[in-house]
């Protein structure tokens, strides 16, 4: 599975990479929260937040263009908010005749819609930076240290470890289905949806059994290596002054931006 690109920049060394996972996680949450509470239409504040992200990205030496492109994944989702442009009361900017209705695009509505798009995009950018600068074990350890239940963190760690194995398994199943689905003379062989869903269901059931049996083998292998219900890690990081100062600077910047936005 082509997921390796996720870890492409995790191995770099920079001030951002050296930060404790907890700090980066909390910092990202604070940034996203700031985006969420910024009132619609404060373009200056949005620009400041974008510059903050750009600064962090420059410090992390991750190429901006790459993250910007990947940040676009959020925009199709955000389009769901397009109705805001029509439903918010305000002065009509354009009136479009669509079939039998006069659809008004209001100024307030347009501002609200664009703000939701921008907030969503900025949040995704920061999340991408977090994923690009924090290794997966570091992120898991951060979650654990932040008080997420051990069982949950352990399940998530295991899930991520076997995700690629099982994704490959799923792709093999799909390739096998493709290979057996020959179509004479390029004509489509039509099958009812129920039949197709049943085939898919059997594939999923098959994948479940393979996963279940694999988990039994994994458990046996872990037992034989001394597993006693606890996942151990050699990494015992402590927060340094540098970590705390970095978080304070970020939070201060966010407070200043929000204070300015609400002035």
């Amino acid at each position: 599975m082509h997921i390796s690109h996720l870890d492409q920049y995790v191995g770099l060394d920079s001030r951002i990479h050296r930060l404790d996972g907890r700090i980066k996680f909390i910092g990202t949450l604070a940034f996203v929260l700031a985006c969420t509470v910024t009132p619609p239409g404060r373009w200056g504040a949005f620009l400041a937040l974008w510059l903050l992200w750009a600064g962090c990205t420059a410090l992390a030496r991750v190429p901006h263009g790459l993250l910007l492109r990947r940040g676009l994944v959020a925009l199709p989702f955000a389009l769901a908010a397009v109705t805001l442009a029509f439903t918010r009361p305000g002065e009509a900017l354009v009136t479009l005749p669509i079939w039998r209705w006069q659809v008004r695009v209001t100024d307030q509505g347009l501002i609200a819609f664009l703000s939701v798009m921008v907030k969503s995009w900025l949040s995704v950018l920061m999340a991408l930076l977090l994923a690009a600068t924090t290794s997966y074990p570091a992120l898991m350890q951060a979650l654990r240290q932040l008080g997420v239940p051990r069982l949950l963190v352990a399940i998530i760690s295991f899930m991520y470890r076997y995700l690629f194995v099982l994704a490959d398994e799923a792709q093999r199943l799909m390739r096998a289905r493709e290979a057996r689905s020959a179509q004479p003379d390029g004509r489509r062989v039509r099958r009812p949806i129920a039949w197709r869903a049943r085939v898919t269901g059997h594939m999923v059931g098959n994948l479940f059994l393979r996963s279940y049996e694999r988990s039994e083998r994994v458990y046996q292998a872990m037992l034989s290596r001394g597993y006693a219900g606890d996942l151990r890690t050699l990494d015992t990081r402590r927060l340094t002054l540098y970590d705390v100062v970095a978080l304070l600077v970020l939070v201060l910047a966010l407070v200043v931006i929000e204070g300015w936005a609400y002035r």
Partner: protein
Amino acid sequence: MMWNSVLAPVLERAAMHIPDGFLSLPVIVVCWILSAVALGFAVRETNKQLGERQVPLMGVLAAFIFAGQMINFQVAGGTSGHLIGAALATILLGPWAAMLIMTAVVTVQALFFQDGGLIALGANILFMAVVAPLVSYGIYRSLRNLHQWVAAALAAWASVVVAAIGVSVALAASGTIALGVVLPAMATVHVLIGIGEALITVGALAFISAARPDLMTLQPAEAGSGRWPMIGLAVALVVALLSPLASSSPDGLERVAEDFGFIDRAMGPFYQIIPDYLFPGVSNEALATILAGVLGTLLMFGVTWLLARRLQRREAS
């Protein structure tokens, strides 16, 4: 309906994973609290039931749900459907383990694939990892003694529809989108997506029960308690009850309804029984909407019950 056909594909993708920037602060806080409480219960119950084996088993099965979502099938016109998996996990492993597994799936999707926001993760966990398993478990437990596969199909279908309604409520309560737009669009789309979910879930369960019947932990023969059907029904009803209260901009809703005149057209069968989503003969609008929602939920429950009983009798004879 033209408006729906524009919105539907967008909503279908946005449907389940709410991105950041969509929810207001109060909604975010409420969702986080609710899902934290539910997950606390889930962790406690799972620790009681499974022991140290649980970690590899549930981790690998969470990866299975993620990978299983990749296996798609053609629906129509180039669109494809795939499994979501909350009901499948619930029926195979029980509601508590399913909650943890779905939480792991949703969390990894947010952390590493930017599928759904980080702050909005609380809401995404609430609807996909808490509400969906609870609703499927309630329906499955109450109906499986009548007919196992019908119960599983309805559990899967309802898990998708109720979660989608929950997402609509959260979006509307945040003022991001008018309830009159999002609820009919989401409900219509997910009533259809739910059919695909039901078919795949039953297909998977049929395969598993044929190959490894010992893994079907929630056997039909298992003694049932009267508590679970009520819990499932209660969760569905609470979501239905919240929907009218969620609209923070009723004037916007009215405007859309007037401008587009689609309120009573674009909706699924349930809404045509009760036009305009309002219960007839009740003047208070919020109360009328609540009544309509409750009646719809109860109707669905009653119809499924009767259907399952009929099928059971046919099989018995």
